[in-house]
């Protein structure tokens, strides 16, 4: 199945803004990040199709995955 991965903020640096990945059916968010070379330690906030999710969430064909780094400054 194909999913779209969109990186935000500093996660784009040296990587990409948005890319499509071919993954086994029902692959998890964590597996998608592994395939994309995005360390889980840097993926602080995850959204699937615009809704909050975590590493264990299963993806489906055509899902759009968005990932943010942790922003904590004030």
């Amino acid at each position, binding site marked *: 199945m194909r999913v779209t991965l969109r990186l935000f903020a*500093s996660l784009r640096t040296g990587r990409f803004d948005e890319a499509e990945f071919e993954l086994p059916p029902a692959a998890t968010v964590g597996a998608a990040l592994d395939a994309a070379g995005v360390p889980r*330690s840097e993926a*602080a906030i995850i*959204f699937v199709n615009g*809704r909050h999710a975590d590493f264990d969430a299963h993806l489906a064909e055509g899902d759009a995955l*968005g990932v*943010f780094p942790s*922003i*904590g400054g*004030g």
Partner: protein
Amino acid sequence: MALTDFLAAAAEEGLLPFGAELEAARRFSLDAHEVEGAALGAGLLPERYARNSGSIGLAGQLALHESRVAVIGCGGLGGFILEGLGRLGVGNIVAVDPDRFEASNLNRQLLATVENLGEPKAEAAVRRLRAVNPAVRCRGLVERLDASNADRLLAGCQAAADALDSIADRLTLAAAASRLGVALVHGAAAGRYGQAATQLPGEDGVARIYAGAEAKRGIEVELGTLVFAPAVVAGLQVAELCHLLLGEEPGLRGRMIALDLGLIETSVFKLH
């Protein structure tokens, strides 16, 4: 002459001139907050709010006057938030920050000046609000919010602003606000990036935002923070606080807006 008669006689087309407020305070031995409450209660709008009235109205201005908001953190976000709440006319503000100004704050923190380096941020907040709007009762507390004092710091507040700079402290505040029935408007900034979200009592939006964060701090450690990021995020937070205090549905309830001020891009996501 009674106070309300004096105010009514001094008003011009429903607006109470600033000079008349000062004279009322002197003549009736009241502070500016009390005079403003009497004026709004009598249907008179203090002149300083003339440009609020088309969007907020007299009833809304009175609601803001009677509100209490805690601003937790008086740094980059907090400085702009306090400025906005004061100019809106939020009547009671609690400004909380344990730190003092350092030179490295000058690039982005509205309350930091070369003249007040070394001064507690919460005390600078009180002085600034007195200068911007003397009708605001602002308490400055030089304290770090933690699980043991959160109840006291948030007591009586309808809403609070998360303007902290540590993820652990943000989670402490979010849990306390949710439990105490205080609406929380979260904001964070780093580099050219920012985010904001609104969490109503009983909700756990901020905990969801940081559920995947392994470290106590985020990308601001490497990127620092440019002044426009906290300025824009704080503007969103003030807007949400205003909506909450006026009893309107906050647009960011259960949602997070992410800002990329390098690309000038915004994205909104559902937290629940």
